[in-house]
């Protein structure tokens, strides 16, 4: 099989991103066409569009990329992924960048990493997500008097009986914890 052509310059950072992303090799053949940014629902609120971000990765702007809000504003809608003419797994690359940013505490000051961590905290403890606990922990401890009012949302969830007051714990929680602990060890060895 012929080697995937590269588009000129290369950076260690790009190789790092590619190695951490299944199918990420196609990042090397990004055309800079901008279909990704044009398809992105939260594009207007991103520091850099995905296209710009890929040019920055190519040029080795490691810190700027990992500190940007771009990956955190990805909503996982996969529009960019299915539309990319070079079949770059863009959504998966955003996941890779988020994981790298969290590992190195390089992320921007958006609330997104805290949200992910609060959410997963409950999953790791109980095996299921817990909306009330999440709302309380995230909004009251992380962003009290949050940027938007929880009022009508919270009242409605309670009066419509759509909010559980206690978390549900799965029976095999110890099994799940053992699995996740092993997975984290393996991930650290990567």
């Amino acid at each position: 099989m012929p080697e995937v052509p590269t588009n000129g310059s290369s950076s260690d950072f790009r190789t790092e991103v590619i190695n951490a992303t299944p199918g990420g090799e196609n990042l090397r053949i990004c055309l800079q066409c901008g279909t990704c940014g044009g398809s992105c629902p939260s594009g207007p609120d991103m520091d850099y569009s995905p296209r710009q971000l890929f040019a920055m990765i190519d040029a080795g702007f490691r810190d700027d990329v990992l500190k940007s809000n771009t990956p955190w504003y990805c909503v996982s809608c996969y529009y960019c992924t299915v539309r990319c003419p070079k079949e770059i797994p863009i959504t998966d690359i955003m996941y890779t960048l988020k994981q790298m940013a969290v590992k190195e505490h390089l992320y921007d000051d958006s609330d997104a990493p805290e949200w992910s961590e609060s959410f997963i905290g409950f999953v790791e403890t109980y095996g299921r997500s817990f909306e009330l606990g999440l709302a309380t922990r995230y909004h009251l401890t992380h962003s009290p008097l949050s940027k938007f009012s929880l009022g009508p949302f919270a009242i409605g969830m309670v009066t419509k009986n759509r909010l559980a007051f206690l978390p549900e714990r799965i029976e095999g929680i110890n099994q799940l914890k053992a699995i996740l602990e092993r997975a984290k060890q393996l991930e650290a060895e990567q």
Partner: protein
Amino acid sequence: MKYGYYPGCSLGKSAKPYDDSTKAIADQLGMSFEEIDDWNCCGATEYFSLNKTAAYALVARNLALAAKQDSLTDLVAPCSACYLNLRKTDDYMGKYPKIGDLTNESLAAGGLSYEPGSLRVRHLLDVVVEDIGFESISEKVTNPLTNLWVAPYYGCMVVRPEFGDTDPVDAEYPVTMDHLMETLGATVVDFPLKTHCCGGHMTQISSDTAFELIRQLLHNADESNADVIVTICPMCQLNLDAYQTQVNRHFGTNYKIPILYFTQLIGLAMGIPAKKLGVGKEFVSASAALKKIGLEVEEEPAPAGKRKKDDKSLPMPSGRVEG
């Protein structure tokens, strides 16, 4: 046919009407659902942002449990995010041997393993459309939804990404739910934003971003005079329904579009009582829309708040949480 059922966390409470209506229509349509014993959360869109190996392992525990349960072959998820995570994990474990190995090595710590491809992961809409089919459904319709104008909303995670020739619907402009709604007797309106994002987790991270996405969807459905937006995803339902009041406040708009699950409309068309389908639990009441098909729906009343002694404002009707 018997299916493995993965309800996911939302269907337990915030999307209970989806679970209720799915179970209510199952019998009549010949679907039998067997819940996966002791399933765990799929991690939504959050775990992959923190630790990929752990994220695949979390999802794969469900696949492993399902595969060893009562010779199940098809695993059905009504939630779009759960569907995608299960489907993607099964697909990637097979496509990328490294992911398969790391995931199985993790599972082994809990005495489990999963052979990718041993289950067919499917979304509920696909099962209803492909396995049951429009013809069988039309035979069960006793109360056609005549004159009800519906905007079929597919959202993202059932339609994208693409996994190859077994994709349930088109990634850009799916029509299966449109045909399903026509089968039920409803009028399907033009809804070009049918596969656009509902805001996902952005309601928690950047409300400005989320509210604009929700506004666009409500505006698009309103332009076509839709009575109802029909959804196949708990996250889409929650964002469009529970935040509609705040979106209206944010933009000075006055949308009042109820958001119902496709299973609720199937149930109504089959003559199943609205209450059994969880209709009435939506924030934005569907009663005005459902009057068009001759249904009087009781809403779950909100408890009346106590009036403070020094309250000098005009007494207002209590209860409804609306903008």
